[in-house]
């Protein structure tokens, strides 16, 4: 389902937080046509070159490796790069790693709230809805909600994600791989990949 959303975009940068995406690992989701980068400085060079040479398509999956550097610092640097690069789909896997329910780093806030200025499209995933910044939940135009059982998660979605009540009633009982898709205009339907 994620790949379906990513594929039509000409320029995609993935922040592969948990290392879920990759073309070699046994438990990794394959990403055909993507270039995998593991170093923030290399990523910066690639984006600068793509900008200078006006590449028609940019597909990069950045996986931060474990190091002494604070992961949050790396994420903020990537956000700055993405904002300066512009006109790109920025996908952040497990975004709750970099925010709390009430706050986000300044760079991410810029992408969340001033995305139109940079021509950005921000996509994100999160296992735990209650850990996602409520600002992000409220400004997201489209939403896919899988099965949630904890009351705090349901409450976060109910209060901030603009999910209709009749759709929320189905959330705790959704089967595996079924999602409630809430569209920008507020309508919704159950979808499965």
């Amino acid at each position, binding site marked *: 389902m994620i*790949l*379906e959303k990513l*594929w039509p975009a000409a320029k995609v940068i993935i922040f592969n937080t948990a290392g879920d995406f*990759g*073309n*070699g*690992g046994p438990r990794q989701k*394959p990403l*055909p*046509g993507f*270039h*995998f*980068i*593991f*170093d*923030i*400085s*290399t990523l*910066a*060079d*690639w*984006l*600068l*070159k*793509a*900008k*200078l*040479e006006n*590449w*028609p*398509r*940019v*597909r990069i999956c950045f*996986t931060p*490796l474990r190091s002494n*550097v604070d992961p949050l*610092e*790396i994420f903020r*640097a990537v956000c*700055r*790069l993405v904002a*300066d*690069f*512009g006109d790109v789909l920025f996908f952040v896997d497990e975004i709750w790693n970099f925010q709390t329910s009430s706050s986000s780093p300044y760079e991410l806030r810029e992408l969340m709230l001033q995305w139109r200025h940079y021509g950005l499209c921000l996509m994100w995933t999160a296992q735990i809805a209650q850990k996602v910044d409520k600002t992000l939940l409220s400004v997201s135009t489209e939403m896919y909600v899988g099965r949630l059982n904890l009351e705090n998660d349901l409450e976060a979605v109910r209060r901030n994600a603009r999910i209709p009540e009749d759709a929320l009633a189905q959330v705790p009982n959704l*089967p*595996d*791989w*079924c999602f409630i898709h809430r569209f920008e205009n507020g309508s919704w339907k159950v979808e*499965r*990949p």
Partner: protein
Amino acid sequence: MAQKKRRGHKKAIPAKVRTNGAAQVDTAKPSGDPLAGAENLANDLVGSVRNMIKKKEPSSSSPEQQQPGSQPSPVEDGSIPSPKTSSESSDVRELAQTVEQIHAKFGAPAPENPTPGASAPGPEANQRGPDIGPGVVEPPDHDFIPRETVREILELIFSGTGKALTPNESRSLTPLTVDMSNEQGPRLMGNSESRAFWIWLGVMTVFIAVRSERGARLIEWICDAVTGTGKSKVEKPKEENKAESKPVVDAKKASTQPVADSTSPASLAFKEDSGFQVPAKQP
């Protein structure tokens, strides 16, 4: 360094004082040549603007001057192509500044030159295929057949002849549709040699199934065994063998005339089961 700065500062101060003083003198004159005063004012204005530009020049041009030095790798010939518009140039400048800051903070990048054909460092670099160029995009590995079509095909296979799958059963096909058909399928079909083999195998299977009754029966038997529809059909080949052997016996019996018939006079009337053809009528 501090002394040099102080000396430079001292030089700058008298210049300011001089210009201000000149302006004051000119404007304080109650009468005189107004054109000369205006000329002095204009000169002062030009001088102050020049000073402003001189002060700002290093900061505004520093990213452009520093780009080639700090980023030698992005462009092959070492020069950075000039952007078309001022907005583009400012965007590139901001990005270059950010890149510089990142290099300063996180260190220089790996020796890899960011060329599209180069491979990225990391544990998976050797496991994946060649990288694509900026303008060349590989077709998607996933969904080379639409998922719904794969699902319908699998539902047809697993539902057998009549019984339709329940929604839960249909949902349980998802791992098969996604993982097997959409992921393993491209891997098997990705190599051109494998693709030729599978195409040949498919064509031959269809050919055998069409031409040979036994082949068709075997395929039908395999399908029945896989889908598990009707165990009676699994034993069908035996019944068919019996059915095949029976006509042979009947034919043998038919070849020998019955005892009663042997004594009865032969009939010259044409019968369809006699094995003889009706002679064509002559005109």
